[in-house]
Each structure stands twice: as C-alpha cells, then as structure tokens.
C-alpha cells in the first residue's frame, strides 16, 4: 500500500489528501444541493427584485416588492400567527416525542422496533386523511362532543374545539409529532446507560438526571426536532383553512396567493424571502435560548 502511494505521498501531505478526499466524497451532494436548492433560491432572489403580474415578469431591479411586504399589516399579523402556531406545535411535538422516546429507551427497550414501526405508520398515513380525521373528532357532532353531551357532562357541544387555533395546533402536532419522536429516539440511543447510572450514583434526582445529563447529551437532537417542526408548521398553508377559524390565516397562504391568484411571482418571492429570513431568525433565537439554558453544551450529541 505504502509502496503504491509512495509517489503521491511525496506531493500531498496526509492532511491535504484527507481534505481532498472529503471534498471528493461530498461533491456529488454539494452539486445536488447547488442545483436543487441554491440555484432555485438564487433565481427566486433575482425575481424578488423585479415586477410581475399575470402578464409575466418585467422591469428593472428595485426594492418595491420588499417595501410592499414589510409595509403590510396583514403580513405581520400572518407572521405572528405562523410563529405562534409553529412554536406551539414544535413544543407539543417535542413533549409527545420525548415521552414516547424516553419510555422506549429507558423503560421498554424491547418495544423499540414496534415503536419505530408505529411512528413510521403514522408518518406514512395520508396527510389529508389525518386532517379530516381531526375534523371528525373535533366537530360539534364529532367524537369528543358526542361523548361529552351524551354522557351528560355538557349540555351544549364545545364549539371552540374545531375551527379554532386549538384545532390548528392539535392537527399540526399530530402531523409533525412523529418526526420529533424519531429524531429524539435517535438522540436517546446515543445516551449510554453508565452515564445515567453515574449521575444516579452521585445522588442526582430523576429530574436532575434529565436536566443535567440526558437533555444536554441530546441537545442537538432537540434543537433539530424543534427547529424542523417549527419551520414546517409555521410554513403550513393547508391545515389552517381546513380546521382553523376566522383568525388563523398563516403566512403560507399569503405567499401561495401571490404565485397562484395574482400571478405576481416576484412579490411572492419577496414574501418568501422575508418569511425565510424571519423564520431563520426565530430558529437562531431558539438555538441561543438552548445555549443559555445549558441544553446545548459543547460536545452535545
């Protein structure tokens, strides 16, 4: 081996060879990202500075679209709704995911494969089917209200269960909680038993064990699950019209309207980029908050 590589070793030191090798291995993925993510984003960014309508895209470059987006009260209201729903959904999904993953990891390891299968089944279940299932459950003549009224616990059905922010967050949570469960299960797999036992041996209470050992060890998994679900939920534009009430318009609908209803692609692109920047900003805040709370120490897995 050394004999065959001898000539090249004279030219390239091991560190450089290692770097070149890593670049070579990563380049197909890099090219794919470039072609499918950065080039379309670049085109979108270019469009966002132009003018458009159903007739097409025209005009020179200007900040007019961004001025319009930033000056619209409706946009800020939709952003606020999106961020609140995104945060609530991410929090609920994280709690549900953590409870399931913790049980499987520390209480019933034998259930791990079954749990993964069940969670995957939920992921593969139809998106719209699950949304309509929630409508059946939460409606005035739905499962919950029927049970409450027929059992005599309530005289009138609860009208706020459906077509309300509660319904939107519940439905979003049911769609995205499986992803959080899978990510946290993966994170908890890397927590070694001896690390937990060492904490207990040192006298830590169960709460303390999770606070000081388990959560910091899976900090990156928590961050990944939270930000992924936050971004997906905040950008959703299918669920709010189907289960939301009159005050649940999210920003995704505004963006879709520009591309579909008005055909103003540049304005839609501007909406998209401002939204992207704002959501990334909120994602960064989440990261910073976790660092401050000690949930994301250096060396966290």
């Amino acid at each position, binding site marked *: 081996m050394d004999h065959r590589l001898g000539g090249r070793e004279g030219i390239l030191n091991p560190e450089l060879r290692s770097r070149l090798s890593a670049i070579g291995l990563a380049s197909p993925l890099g090219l794919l990202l470039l072609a499918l993510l950065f080039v379309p984003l670049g085109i979108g960014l270019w469009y966002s500075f132009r003018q458009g309508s159903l007739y097409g895209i025209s005009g020179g470059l200007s900040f007019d679209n961004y001025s319009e987006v930033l000056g619209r009260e409706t946009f800020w209201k939709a952003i606020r709704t999106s961020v609140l729903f995104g945060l609530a959904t991410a929090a609920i999904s994280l709690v549900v995911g953590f409870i399931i993953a913790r049980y499987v990891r520390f209480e019933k390891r034998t259930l791990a494969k079954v749990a993964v299968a069940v969670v995957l089944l939920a992921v593969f279940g139809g998106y719209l089917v699950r949304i309509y299932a929630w409508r059946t459950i939460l*409606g005035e003549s739905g499962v919950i209200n029927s049970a409450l009224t027929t059992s005599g616990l309530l005289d009138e059905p609860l009208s706020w269960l459906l077509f309300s922010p509660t319904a939107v967050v519940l439905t979003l949570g049911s769609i995205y909680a499986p992803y959080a469960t899978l990510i946290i299960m993966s994170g908890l797999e890397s927590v070694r038993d001896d690390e937990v036992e060492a904490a207990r041996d040192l006298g830590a209470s169960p709460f303390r064990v999770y606070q000081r050992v388990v959560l910091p060890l899976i900090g990156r998994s928590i961050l990944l699950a939270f930000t992924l679900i936050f971004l997906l939920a905040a950008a959703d534009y299918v669920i709010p019209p189907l289960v939301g009430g009159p005050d649940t318009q999210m920003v995704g609908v505004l963006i879709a309207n520009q*591309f579909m209803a008005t055909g103003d692609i540049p304005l839609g692109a501007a909406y998209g980029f401002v939204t992207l920047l704002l959501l990334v900003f909120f994602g960064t805040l989440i990261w910073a908050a976790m660092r401050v709370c000690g949930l994301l120490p250096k060396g966290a897995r």
Partner: protein
Amino acid sequence: MKPSKAPQRHPFVDDPGISRAQAMTRGAFLRRAAMLGFTVTAAGSVLAACGSDSSSSSGNASAGSLEELGQVGGQLQILTYAGYEGANAIKPFLKKNGIDAKTTFINSQDDVSTRLRSPAGKKADAAQLGVAQVDIYRNLGLFLPLQKEWFSNFDAVEPRFPKLTENEDGTLTSMPFVWGSLGWNYLPDKLEPIESWQDLLDPKFKGKIAMVDDPVSSIQTGALAVGVKEPGRMTKDELAETKEFLMKVKANARTVAAWYGDIADMLVAGDVWCSFQGWNAVQAFAAEKGGVVHTGYPKEKVVGFVDTFGVPAESDNPATGVAFINEMIGKKMQTYVGNDLVSGVVRLDVVPNIKGLGKEVFNYNDFDEIFNTKLNFALDAPIEPDGDIATHEEWITAWEDVKAS
C-alpha cells in the same frame, strides 16, 4: 327552492314543442352541411368526433381552418376540474377516435393561470376557463380563437352562453359547457331565506356562517351586496366598501372554508347553518351525505358562473381539443353534466333527460327568471391598472386583509 317539472318546450324557440335542434335555420343547415362535406372528404376521424348532430348532406368545405388544426386522435391533454374531463361518460368517444386523454386536475381557476404560463401547461389541448376570466385570457392571447363552424353541436347551445365568450370578430375565446350560481346555501330547518346579503350582519348569525376562500367570487358577491352593479369595473372606493362589508360578515363567520365541498360537510355536520357565498352544487354534495341544504337568492343578485373550455394557442393537438369540446356540448355529455355533475347544462334540449337533484337544483322552468333577475355574470377585475378601477391584484389583497381581519 321548490322541485321543478321537466320543461315541455325550449324557452327560446318560438314554436312550442319544437326543440332548438329541430328548429334549424337555413344558415345553420348550410354551415352543418359544409362542415360535414369537409369532414367526409378530408378527415373521416373529424366526422366521427364532431358529426353527432349533423345532417347527412354534403357541401363546400367552408371550414378550411378546421383542417389546418390537424387530425383528431392521439394524445389529448386536458386541464380542468375533476369530473369536467368527462369521467367514464366520455370514454366511448375517446375510444372511437383513438384518443389517449391525460387530465391534469385543478383546484381553482388560479391553477390554470399558473399552469398555462408553464411550458407544459401551454401544451394543453383543452383548458378550463371561467367566464369571469375570459377578458383576461383574451388579452393575454393564450387561447386559440374558436370558429363556431368547428363545432357541429354549437347550434344547439343556448345562445346567451356563447355570447359571454364571443370576440369582436365573432369567434369565441372559449366554449361554455357548464353553468351555475354562487347563491346562499342554508339549512332550511334552522333558518328562513334571507332577503338581502346585508341580513348576514345580524348578530343572530354569529358563529353560524362559513365563508369560502374563493377570493374573486367572494369579492364579487360582496360588491353586489353593497350595491355595485358591475363588480368587474368597481372603483377602488367601491372595493374599500366591499372589503368593509366582507370584514363585517367575517366577524359573524365561524370559519373561512377551503372550498365549497367543505361548506357542504360543515352544513351537514351542523357546524354552521349557512354560507357566504355558496354554490348550488352544495345542495347535491350535502344530499349525498344525507343533509338537506337549500340555496337562496338575495335581492342584490348572486354571482353566476359559466365554465368553458378553450384551446391553448400552443396546443400540440388542437383538432382533438376542438373535437373533445364539441363532444362536451353534445347531447350525451350535456346529460352527463346535468345528471352526474349536478351542474347547469348549456343546451336546453337535454333538460327532459335530467332527473333528480340535477333537475331540482336547477329550476329550468324558471330559467329566464333566474338568468334575468337572480344572476350577475360578473367579470374578474382587470389585470393592468385602468384609472380608478380596482385591479385583480387589489381584489386579492383586499380578500387577504378580510381573512386576516
């Protein structure tokens, strides 16, 4: 709406008992004869596709431009709502003419706008077009002007429908094949019919109304409600007044439904008691689920719609697109439209074939009255700025503000 009896005669033919197809004019006869002559000598397959109502005469091939469209057959790209492609009813026609139909289903007219600007969408051979948008598409030049002579079934179509899509030179931007109205859907066991759209502002409707996320039609209905006679030409001030009215309706609404099918679900489930606005097909959707929903016509009128098919200018197979559209206004497919889609038919000689809900929902006995006194075939707003007239984009922005209010 009370059930109607099947009409005994065509309301627009002078002689009672004579259908429009029977009461053929000399001009119509000559057009058909010329059409048939051309198709027999030049393209047998076109005859098969278009000749279902033609008489067996021959003449000069006056419709030479149809020949330029090419042969009927091969792949047919359709862009339309589910059901409007003809489902199983169209299959014998497709088989007979060797047509392989591929349909791209849309959710709203906006889908068409988006797709027709894409390279693949421009290649469609028959694309759905709402009559409210005809002016827009005419100006965009995206559709092939249709010669009436290309359609052997054209003379049987009730004339007031093609008038809506007629160009200055007598050609059509698109061919109407379905109509309906966006009236007020309500539960008759809970509510009495309203007199005016303004009645929906009454606090008794609080939490009982479902609006629908159909921006253009909602703005049009709102404009009618505040007294605008021609919504497509409303001014910016009138749009502001419309928006204010819609915001007040929304304050009473329980939700803004994603689409009309949702309204039927909500009414049947009792989640809401009425809609702003509705669609007469909601009655049929609700009936399928065991619900009883009625449609009211407030005094300010309701938005009428006509769905049409056009042939995109860059179609690869326009002859087949034309043949398909001709079939859609043929007797068989119009009967399908009335019975299976529970939608309004554009040729009234098929009305006796329409049964059940299709007959009940569309009261053809009062066809004239409905058209003249209850419906407003409102147009969409202009795309380009036009003085003080509100633009399409301003309509959409106003609707977004209403939803966010």
